[in-house]
Each structure stands twice: as C-alpha cells, then as structure tokens.
C-alpha cells in the first residue's frame, strides 16, 4: 500500500469518530467566539454544523492526550489533583452555560484552584505569558480561553484559577494565574444574554465582517457571509523591485553586523577608551529619558522572494 493511502485510511478512520451533537446552551469554551450569530446557530441550527475535519480531530485527540499527561505531571509533583465530573453549577447558571472543568488542584495552601489545560504549539507557547496575550492574539481559538476559565471561576464563586499551558514540542509546562475580573465577566454574561434573547425571539444577530473567521465557520453555508478582502495589487515599479532585490542581498550582512556589533560592545564592557589593533573606540554615556510609547497602529510587512 502506498504511504499516502495509509495516511488517508487513518484520516478516514478519524472521520468516523466525528459527530455533530445537539447543543442547548452556550458552551463556556465557545462564549469568547467573536461572532454572536455563530453562537445562536450553534443552538438553533446545531444539525447544520459542518463537522470539523479529520485533521482537526487529530489535534483534538492530541489535546486530550496532553491533558492526561499534564494531570499526571501535577500528580507526580505531589499536588492533590481532582478531575471533576461535568459541573452541575455550570448547567444551573443564569444565563445558562455548559462546560467541563479540566482539573482542580490543591497546590498545598489548602485551597483548591480551578484550572484549564491547553496544549499549544511551540511558537504560541513562547508568546503567551498572560491572559492579555490570549485576549489580543490573532488566533480566535486563543481568544476563547480567558472567557472559558473566567466563566468557570464566576460560576464556582472563586477568585483565582490557572491556565496550565503545555508546549507541544517540548512538553514543558507553563502556569498563568488568572484572577476573576468582574467587569470582564459582566461583558461575557451580557453576550450570553443577547444570544439567549435571539434564540427566544427567533432572530439572528448581525453578520460580522471578518473573512478569517467567516470562511472557516461551520455555519457559513447557512449564514452566507459576504467575504470582502483587500486585493493583491500589481505594482509595476522597476526601481522598487531593484530596491527589494538589494534589500535581499544585504539582509544576511545586516543580521551578521548586528550580531558582531553586539558581541564587540559586550567585550568592551563599560570601558571608555580602547585601542584594539588598528581600531580606537571612544565611549560616551548617553542618558535616555523615560517615556511612554503611545498606542499606535502600524502595518507590518512580511517580504519574501517568490522563486521556483
């Protein structure tokens, strides 16, 4: 059997495990999703949900394995670990939210803390160090994490919980303590109430205008969102093209210069006057005043040469 065929068989096998299940209330894990129309469809039109792909199922299964490993790590460390059953408090919450807390841990101070375990790719693992980083991530699934944990804390009436992040490359854990933020929680509750009102009144929230989210949405075929994108512009400008080529040529040298320059300065230490072979270096103290960087929005370009 061809290698590709074997992989295809595995993917086909995974497809059999994917099921679309009925949904009656908003899920804590989804409440942070940016589209309220999606949250309404998830309940009113759950049968229409496009099942996720076999590739995504593999990621979910990997996540469950990581969750088990993380719990084992906590147990091995000697902490008291509880794996809660689906929480009754969640189901009885007003507005109704459903959820499943991953873990509750007593780290030794006599208190039991609610935690969410998340496996992240290496880059995200390195980038994410606070719930602010999650809330401001470009990735919608990372933005869903804080509302999920915050909802559990709110429902359980606890002031503090934690994220245990696990690097999918190194399996290194990272802890982020999260304090219940009531104004933030209030926004989540208001959102849930709006979703409930739409379901009750058989209305739909407005569509959002975000191709990144709409195009991958499981309800795109019934929502029929307009996908508006910035078009790729063809610029005929030989001078600019030459500059880009030159930029490319200098790139390696620039990186090397920065590296060597850093190493040289490190060797100088804080000595003011030095003579090294044919070179003389004179240092001067520069006082840098403290200042605050104003919030701003700017375009960041990733420039790459396309060649065959």
């Amino acid at each position, binding site marked *: 059997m061809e290698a590709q065929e074997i992989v295809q068989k595995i993917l086909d096998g995974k497809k059999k495990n994917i099921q679309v299940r009925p949904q009656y209330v908003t899920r804590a894990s989804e409440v942070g999703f940016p589209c309220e129309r999606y949250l309404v469809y998830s309940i009113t039109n759950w049968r229409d949900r496009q099942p996720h792909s076999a590739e995504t199922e593999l990621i979910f299964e990997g996540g469950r394995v990581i969750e088990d490993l993380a719990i084992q790590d906590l147990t091995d460390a000697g902490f008291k670990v509880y794996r809660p059953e689906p929480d009754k408090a969640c189901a009885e919450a007003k507005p109704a939210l459903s959820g499943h807390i991953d873990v509750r841990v007593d780290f030794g101070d006599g208190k039991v803390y609610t935690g969410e375990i998340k496996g992240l790719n290496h880059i995200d693992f390195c980038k994410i160090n606070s719930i602010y980083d999650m809330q401001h991530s470009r990735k919608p699934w990372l933005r869903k994490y804080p509302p999920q944990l915050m909802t559990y804390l709110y429902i359980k009436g606890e002031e503090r919980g934690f994220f245990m992040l696990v690097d999918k490359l190194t399996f290194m854990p990272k802890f982020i303590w999260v304090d219940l933020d009531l104004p933030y929680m209030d926004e989540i509750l208001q959102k849930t109430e709006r979703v409930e009102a739409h379901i009750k009144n058989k209305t739909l929230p407005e569509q959002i205008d975000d191709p990144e989210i709409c195009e991958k949405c499981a309800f795109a075929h019934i929502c029929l969102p307009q*996908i508006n994108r910035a078009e790729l512009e063809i610029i005929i400008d030989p001078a600019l093209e030459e500059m880009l080529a030159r930029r490319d040529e200098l790139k390696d040298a620039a990186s090397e210069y920065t590296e060597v320059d850093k190493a040289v300065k490190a060797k100088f230490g804080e000595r003011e006057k030095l003579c090294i072979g044919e070179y003389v270096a004179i240092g001067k103290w520069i006082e840098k005043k403290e200042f605050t960087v104003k919030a701003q929005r700017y375009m960041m370009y990733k420039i790459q040469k396309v060649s*065959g």
Partner: protein
Amino acid sequence: MSDIENNYNATENGNISILSNDTLIKLSQMAEDRVKAMNTIKLHALKATNKNDWVNEGGKPYLQESGSCKIARVFGVSYRINPPTKQLFSDGHYEYIYTGDFSLGGAEISATGSRSSKGDFFVGKKDPKPVSEIDEGDVRKAAYTNCIGRGIKELLGLGNLTWDELGTAGIKKNECAGFEFDKSKQEMSSEAKDQRKEIAKMLLEMADNDKETASKLLAEFTAFTGRDGKEIAGKSKLEDLSEKAIPVTYSKIKKAHDEWRGPDGSSGNSPENT
C-alpha cells in the same frame, strides 16, 4: 489619465487612432511586466497550498476547495454566495444549487455549484443508501463548498494546471491522494463500441485481412501534428483509442475506405496509394 491612455485618441466618428511606436513599446513592456508579475503571483499562490489540497484525478491535478480558499486569500478574492435552491426529483432524490458572485480587481464572474443526493459520495457505491438515510445537510454543505471552489478556480483560471507547474511550488504528483482512471475498465458507449468494430472491419478489408498491415494503417490514420509542430505518433491498437478519438478516426477511415472501394463499391488500393 496615463500617457498610454492619452494615446488612445478617439476620433469624431468613434474610431481609435493608431498608437504611436513609443506607446506600443510601452504597452509591450507593461504587458511583459504584467506577465512576470502574474507568474510571481501564481507561484506564490501555489506555494500557499500543500499536497493535501490537491488530488490526482485521472492523472490531472485537481485543486480541492481547501486549496482554492488558500489561494483566494493570497489574491484577495471577494465573494458573496446566494441562498440555495433545492430541486426535487421524481425518485425522491434532490439537488442543492448555490450561485455566487466572485470578484477580483474589477473582474467579476458568477459561478454555480451543486450536489445531488444521487452522488456516489452520499449514496455509496457498494450498498446504495436509500434517500431517507442521506443527510440532507451534507448535500447542502457540499454544494456550497463546490460553488466556492468553482468560482475561485474560474476567476483565477486555475482549472488547467499541470503537474510540472505544481512541481515548481514543491507539490508532487506521487504525494497527492487520488486515482488514475483505468482506461481498460472504462465503460464505453455502445455507439463508440459499434464504431470501433466498424473501424476494425474497414482496416482489415483495406489490408487484405493482414492484421499487421491493418495495425500500421491505424497508426497512420491516428497520427497528427501537435500544436508545437511536432509529429505525434498514432495508435496501432484499437483498444488504445479513447472514446473521444473513435468518432474522428472513424470518419477518417470511413472516407478512405469509401475511396478505396470506389464509386461502384469495388475494392481498390490501400489509402497509401490513393
């Protein structure tokens, strides 16, 4: 208005005056630059896809919807899909049809995508499912996906890419899932089968029942000159003729056979000598 546009001087009767040589050179340079840019974009777009986005369909690369969407992101294709229509058939089966408008850089096209509950994918090949067991939502979703895939491919002209072109983006035929059509097992229409029999009969007649000569004659009748001016060798076996090639070959051989027989139906020389 650009220099080039200024050179399009409309006369009073609406005719366009002849462009100056300078303008032609500029236009030609612009066209070259555009082609270069388009090739860069095409390669960049193909590089946005991976082997999982392509399927080997009967030896030809077929871009799946996942890949179409990735490429659409690179180009910045915008689209709007209209609510679907559902067509019911007398046997209880149905078809979902979506239409959509796709645009890029002032170009806009409409595309249609459809899926029928009768499709093999829904009914199954071995034990066909009754229509009641088919998930209508699946048919509808597949029609939606089909419409997006078709619209993007049509707008960007991605329908006829070759494996060589994909190779420049690192996508190899042998790494893509798919299938090759088994030519020997393909069902041929009865009309084509009849014509093939007739071709065999006429060739044998003209070759005095010598199979080897008949085979050579077939190779002569099916040889042709390609677009690049190169001679393409003909087929010496009837079973190698595709269903599409049979009617063309049939009419050529029929004409030669008629000439060979002569107006009174008496047999003559082989077509080589006529």
